[in-house]
Structure formats: C-alpha cells, structure tokens
C-alpha cells in the first residue's frame, strides 16, 4: 500500500549538512494527547534516516515519555536537569540511538518539575548544541505555562500538532496567538490522526476546515494509524517502517523541514486505507 510519496525518503541521499549550525524545531500543541511525542520521535528518526545529525530534547520535565517511544528508557543515566544543574556534561546526557548513530536523545528528569528549567537554560543548551548537529527537536509539554515557555524559547521554527477536532484546534489557536505575541512565527501545522473516511462523511474536520480557522501553513497530514500504539510501546517509531502510511507522512514532514517540496499524500485513494474500510462496511456505495 501507499508508499508512493515516501519512496524517495528511503533511498540514500547525499548528506546535506548545515554549515551554519542546527535548526531548532519545537513541537507543541497546547492540548495533551494529540501526538506531540510521537511526532517528535518520528520526525527525529526520519531526519536521521536522511543523514541528518539530530538531537531530540524532552522538555516535559516530570512526565517524560520520549525515551519510551524511542526505546531508550533503560539507557538513561543523566537527564536535562542534571545538565542544567551542572551534575554532568551535556555530552554525557545525550543518549545515542540503537540503530541510528547520529540520532541522540536528551531525556527529561522524571523526579523534578517544570520549574527546574528556565527559558534561558534552554537557549543555553540549544546554543551549545547548534555547532554540533543539524537539527535540535524539542518535545514540548502540554499546556501554556512554564514548560511551554521553556520549550519555545530557543526555537527557530515551531510545529504545532493538532487533531481534526474542535477542542484540539481551539488550543492550537491559543498557542499560535501566544507564539505571535512572542514573535516566534510563523508556525507550521501538523494535522495528526486524520481519518479520511470520517471526513468524507462530514463527521470530522477536514484539513481545509482546520487551516480555515488557524490560518497557518500545513507541513504535514498524518493519517490515523493504529500501529502507532504498538510502535510506541515497542520503542520503534513508525518512520522506520517503509510501508506505513503514517510513517511516510512523518518522513515527508522531515523532508519538508529540509526545504524540499513534497506533495501531500492522497488521503482518500482507493488503493489502501479507504478500500479496506469500504470492504469492512460492505463496499459499493462507498467508492
């Protein structure tokens, strides 16, 4: 099934490395549970697979998850707060990924809270990393308080993850307003957990409905994919799987972050997703 647009991502490409230092990308959303951590992990893997040097930073102090999704939980020795409070060198807190040698994770502290980190600390850490890598991707906690301010402080670019539902879009709108107030724009939108079949029936907001309200540019549309759950549990982000539509969507986002023009995947084609649904409900009138 649909590997059309993503095929290029899996073929080796000449390394395009930044000469001027890393781009800092913060992944945020306002609302919890829309897929920030999954998006961070997958974009990180996708970028590393096209030969980018990537550091992921989990800024969700006290509720760390990114290490689990990346399958690196058992390798944690030092964390972000250890670096900030001087208990270790930055390098020591960077956990190298198992398969991708140029993908690193700086995990969050689990026993502390957001107040252990300040926006200035985040800027300092990002500036220290900039000369060493191509991308620094920060996983922002839910909410609009200290954790959010920490995560966006060093950002060169902000990706806002939302789901096609009104409450998530409302929170995304609030976040965009806050970013505008701090001159952190323009942010880009990742529309996650899209179900083409529900959009077709008018039961779910379409990408057009969402961008109509938020008025920012889409950088990715990720279809709902139940293998996300098993991928998270097993610590193997979907962006590793070449035959996953969600994985392909994340790889496309990574390529767009590199400045490539990648067309959006056809969501409601008859080859994969929709055909299966149609079969489930007794096809015919559906196609």
């Amino acid at each position, binding site marked *: 099934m649909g590997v059309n647009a993503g095929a290029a991502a899996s073929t080796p490409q000449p390394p395009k490395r930044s000469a001027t230092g890393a781009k800092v990308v913060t992944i945020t959303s306002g609302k919890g549970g829309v897929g920030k951590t999954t998006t961070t992990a997958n974009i990180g893997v996708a970028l590393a697979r096209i030969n980018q040097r990537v550091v992921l930073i989990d800024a969700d102090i006290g509720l760390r998850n990114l290490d689990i999704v990346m399958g690196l939980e058992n390798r944690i020795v030092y964390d972000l707060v250890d670096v900030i409070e001087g208990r270790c060198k930055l390098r020591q807190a960077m956990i190298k990924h198992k398969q991708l040698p140029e993908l690193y994770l700086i995990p969050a502290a689990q026993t502390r809270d957001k107040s252990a980190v300040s926006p200035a600390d985040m800027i300092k850490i990002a500036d220290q990393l900039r000369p060493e890598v191509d991308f620094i991707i920060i996983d922002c906690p839910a909410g609009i308080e200290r954790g959010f301010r920490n995560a966006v402080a060093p950002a060169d670019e902000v990706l806002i993850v939302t789901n096609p539902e*009104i409450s998530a879009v*409302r*929170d995304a*709108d*609030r976040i*965009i*307003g*806050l970013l505008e107030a701090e001159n952190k724009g323009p942010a880009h939108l990742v529309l996650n957990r899209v179900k083409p079949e529900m959009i077709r029936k008018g039961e779910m907001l379409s990408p057009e409905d969402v961008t109509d*309200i938020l*008025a920012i540019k889409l950088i990715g549309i990720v279809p709902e994919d139940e293998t996300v759950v098993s991928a998270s549990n097993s610590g193997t982000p979907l962006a590793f799987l070449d035959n996953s539509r969600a994985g392909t969507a994340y790889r496309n986002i990574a390529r767009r972050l590199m400045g490539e023009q990648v067309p959006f995947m056809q969501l409601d084609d008859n080859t994969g997703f929709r055909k299966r649904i149609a079969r489930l409900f007794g096809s015919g009138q559906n196609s």
Partner: protein
Amino acid sequence: MSDINIAIKGVKDGLLITLDEEAEWGAVTADLASRLDEKSAFFAGASVTLDLGERPVAKDQMSGVKALLERRGMLLHAVTSASMTSLDAASALDLRAHNLAAVEPEPEQPAFGSELPYNSEEDGMIGVLIRRTLRSGKTVTSRGHVVILGDVNPGSEIVAVGDVIVWGKLRGRVHAGCEGDEQAVVCALDMQPTQLRIAGYIAISPSDKRRKPKPETALIRDRQIVVDEWTG
C-alpha cells in the same frame, strides 16, 4: 452654591455628571441633589457615569451618591477618576471604574486635531482598530467601538460599550453596547459568533452548515436580536 461646579451632560449611553473636585463633599452632593430635582422627570431612568476628577471618594461616600441617584430613578454604572481611592471604591461597589490618569488627559476632546470640525454624532465615542486576527484566549474590551481587520476566532472575546465591526469572520463571543446601549450593532463579513450580545440581549448562531458567508449586521429590533444583510 453657585461656586460649586457640577456639569450634567447627555452622552450616547446616558448621562455624564462631572462633580466639583475642590468643594466640600457634603455641599457637592447637596447641590447635585437639588440640580437633579429640578429636572427629575427628565433624568429618570438614565444610566449615569460619574466623573470625580482628582477627588478621592471613599466607598461610603460613593454608595451615598449611588443611593442619591437611585432615589431619583437613575442608575450609577460607571465612575471616572484619577484617584485610586475613588477607583477602588467604585470597584468595591461593582461599578465600572475608568482610570482617568491612564486614559487621555482630556477625555471630552476628540483625539484628532481640534481644528477639525466634528458634529455631536462623532463626539464622545472613541474606537479601537485592531489589524490582526483575534485568536482563542484573547479578549478585547473598549469603552468605545471596536473594529477588527481580521478574523475573530472561537475562544476569543470582544466587549465594547459601542459597536463592533469585524472585517473578517466572526466566530468568537461578542458583546456590543455592554453598558446598555440598545442602539449598538455588530457587523461582520461572516457572522457566526459563538454567542452574540447587544446590551442585555443574548443570541447564539443557528447551526446551519450550508450557509453562504455574507456581510451581516446584528441589531436589536422589537426587543430581540435580529441579523440583517449588511446594506451599509
């Protein structure tokens, strides 16, 4: 009594009463009472904004004036003052408190050049122009009119003493004529507010998904909010 300065002026949303800043408080209130009694029928039912200037007025003095007005069928709803004591007293009595010191020094003068001719319709009501989209969580309040060049997204709110004009999509909450002006209107290029209020009336948008966006005006007619096509 003649050396006590009291000005009673009709403004768009009621009466503006400016009280002497210097004279003894008891004399001022006595003079106010007699001035009002001269035309009690004329003033009855008016909504009053009290301008106290620099004078610090304590809460019990303030509630005294409020009662004085209420006995004559008038409602004190706002206080303008440069004194924090007066403003705190007003807030404590649930009155709208406008800080004179924070606003322009001469609120009765139009902000633009005084050589410009203006008529009474343009006088008195200020406005605010916002050239961007109001996003969720943003609130705009104004003593005058509000004009938005952009959208008003769901989760945002506009509260204005005067009219609200949205050159864009109106999807948030909006309250025009929030101090009781039933002549206030709300205009938008696409009228779909979460909730719309004019003076004391409340309306919500019908959930018609197939509607075509068109410029519309909401106003009060026959004691309810109606929405007309915007004809200017």
